[in-house]
């Protein structure tokens, strides 16, 4: 149980340092094109990797997980914001698992 607090402190410390270091240290633009590009792509790659296949295994049945993935992609593609996309994914799972 106590070990969880150490995990949480590490998460908090690292999360804060990542956000605070550039704000407090960098006063100029980063020059390296590679690092700039790398940092640019990181969020998309991390989030994509964490979304699939995890979303398929998150639900009671993989069928509704796949449906949530498809509906979420379509909703976001056609301009739904964060909240609407999340609600769309939840709704489709809720409705589908009624029948499954």
């Amino acid at each position: 149980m106590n070990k969880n607090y150490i995990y949480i402190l590490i998460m908090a410390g690292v999360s804060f340092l990542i956000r605070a270091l550039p704000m407090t240290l960098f006063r100029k633009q980063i020059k390296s094109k590679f690092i700039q590009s790398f940092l640019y792509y990181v969020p998309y790659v991390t989030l994509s990797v964490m979304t699939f296949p995890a979303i398929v295994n998150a639900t009671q049945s993989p069928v509704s997980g796949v449906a949530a993935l498809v509906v979420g992609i379509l909703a976001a593609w056609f301009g739904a914001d964060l909240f609407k996309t999340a609600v769309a994914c939840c709704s489709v799972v809720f409705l589908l698992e009624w029948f499954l």
Partner: protein
Amino acid sequence: MKTYSIKQNKNAIVQGFRDGIPIGLGYFAVAFSLGIAAKNAGLTPFQAFLTSALCHASAGEYAGFTVIAAAASFLEMTTITLIANARYLLMSCAMSQRIDPQMPFFHRLIMSFFITDELFGIAIARPGYLNPWYSYGAILFASPCWAVGTALGAIAGNLLSLRLVSAFSVALYGMFLAIFIPPARKNKVILGIVVLCFVCSGLASVLPVISAWSEGTRTIILTLVISAGAALLFPRKTDEEVPAHE
């Protein structure tokens, strides 16, 4: 720029608070699903609350919970938190270019603490120097929604029917999709990368040897390799803006 007259600061707080309401409501739903993940990983509702109050990071916290669930090493926790939150480094860089040189230093620290996709997005979308009071207004509503939502998810996750839990548990992924699908639609390179990520991540979860690694390790390795490859093959033009997430 008279950023520091009291009346203007008050207006900025009110404006920020108003813009923070839709963000907070969105946070609440997602945080609830995060709370379920926290509970499944073995955290108490208070620990879930504490994590959200201290970290303000959906993907980062979720990644951290997978580490806790696997009882993995502190080093792995440090690395995965670093990787999952790497985009905040970029946002922080972008924000550092928009700070009034006369602004007292402690504002930089507070603003840094609350960098999220959405709070960054609304702050950077305003013209001129960033007004810390505008951000504080938004934080005032959105941050408690996030922390309380996580705690409630951890508490009520097991009071809800299995079907409801199942439905809520995809909210987080829905939010991830809402972050990376719109840029993928606009940018063919990102679209290609997302497809590649899905394929690689899918394969990594079933291939022998690799599938035995923890989810966190697979995420780190795939992120480093794919992002570095993309940076080498498709370098960004230096003066392109950091995209503001919605």
